[in-house]
């Protein structure tokens, strides 16, 4: 048996890539608990659910406690103030994500909630990252702001510093 190596001259002009785009569409069921939470946003209400066993207020609302494996029982309206738990300031665009940098993406724990929620922190001058990151850290007080016309999705609200810089 003989083997024949590839002829470099022939392979250098051979096609090297096949390009394809996946175009996928979905219509996800939201479920009763998430649906009620999103309906609350239209009234500028921030709704969590309390676990009857560990008594944590899970926010945003969840139908069961992942720790106790119990259904949550009561709706809890959480406050519009809280603290920054963690954040990043994004300066580079990610392909396929429709938001222009720079922006602050953050998790904040709101008054009355035992867990934190993701959102944008707005109102900060991000031109100089050193200056911006001197103004915020874990524990910095924040307040929630709602859009004038909430449509029932999580981007209806965002965070701003409780004491503007």
């Amino acid at each position, binding site marked *: 048996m003989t083997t024949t190596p590839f002829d470099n001259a022939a392979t250098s002009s051979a096609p090297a*890539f096949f390009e394809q785009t996946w175009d996928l569409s979905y219509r996800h069921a939201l479920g009763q608990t998430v649906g009620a*939470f999103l309906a609350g946003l239209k009234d500028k209400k921030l709704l969590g659910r309390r676990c009857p066993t560990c008594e944590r207020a899970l926010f945003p609302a969840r139908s069961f406690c992942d720790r106790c494996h119990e259904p949550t029982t009561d709706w809890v309206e959480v406050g519009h103030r809280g603290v920054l738990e963690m954040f990043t*300031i994004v300066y580079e665009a990610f392909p396929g994500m429709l938001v222009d940098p720079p922006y602050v993406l953050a998790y904040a*724990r709101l008054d009355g909630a035992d867990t934190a929620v*993701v959102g944008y922190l707005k109102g900060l001058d991000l031109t100089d990252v050193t200056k911006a990151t001197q103004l915020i850290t874990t524990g910095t007080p924040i307040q929630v702001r709602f859009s004038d016309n909430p449509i029932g999705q*999580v981007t209806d609200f965002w965070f701003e510093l409780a004491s503007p810089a």
Partner: protein
Amino acid sequence: MRNVGIVGTGQTPFVKTRTDVVYPELVREGATLALADAGVTMADIDAVVFPLAPDALIGVGNGERWCVEALGAHGKPFMRVNTGGATGLSAVQAGYMHVASGMFDVVLVAGADRVSESNSAQSVLNKMWDVAYERLYPLNTITMLAMSAQRYNAKYGADERDMARITVKNRRHASRNPNAHLRAEITEDDVLATRLISWPLKLGDLCPSSTGAAAVVLMSEERAKRSGRPVAWIRGIGQNSETFWMGDRVGPRAVGDHADAEALAIAISRAYAQAGITDPSAQLDVAELYAPFSSVEMHVIEAAGLCAPGESFRRIADGEFALGSGTTVVNPSGGTLCTNPIAVTGLVRAAEVALQVTGRADARQVEGANVGLATAIGGDHQFYASMVLANHLEEIAT
């Protein structure tokens, strides 16, 4: 449970792009290298385990279907394992269970990745987050780990220069590893001058998107001893899972803190308990700890018990954990920070420790390495795997 050893390992050089092979051909390269290293052929393999993370990253639906022939698996038991970034090590653990249980004597664990073929990796990874509550935001592995880094730095007083030192160390190590993707040495100031992506993470803090293949051959004690080859014995394995919700990892009622890697520490403690590791710094010569970004290495060193929480970056500044330091060497291969072929990244951690404890790691060899730890993390810091390997079956000395 029977003793199980890693008898063969195979890795292709990891690069950005391979245009000379399609995906199954790449998978076959890693498998062929590991079979040769183990001194066996496909005919000796009883079962195959295939690691592959999200389909959309390689742009192939159920990519395992495509690779059955490449892995000689027709007519044999075959399974795919997916725990995100932990996939590769979870697959080795599944192979370990295959053999330890007595079901199979010789198992091939082999896979590959070609992450750079998609320009949409962070968009694919964004789909891990909750449909209604989180996915509308640009959450992805970069922003998720940037927030962990911010929280760690705020909690313990680390900064971007501390992170840069980790890149410097790992690139220096990678320069000695012919299979590593990013092999050029870099200075702290060079890392600090790279462009800001997601503060505090800069380009110099991030892993590359790597293409390449890796595999290991696992054997029962009897078959491994009969092979006459150097054997890295799997002395302990551990796994753990963390809540889906990043927002539950903060505040006074949190079980684990997103700044730290407490769930990983538990996964590692499970492997330590099985292996008889009670003093990791004294008993471990080497550790290949999955850390795709410089910042992650800080808390995974701590989770491995190699120092106290909040101490790792100070130790690194003192030169510890580096080749030639005399301490447990962390990521002598250059680690995930220099090479990240997602599906097999965790598998490479085990393969590198196997090479180390059998004295076959060439220029990156940790002198006299007998015992080592491999770890991996997947799915928004959610799935954790760990494995202790040693070149003997005796009690691991303290």
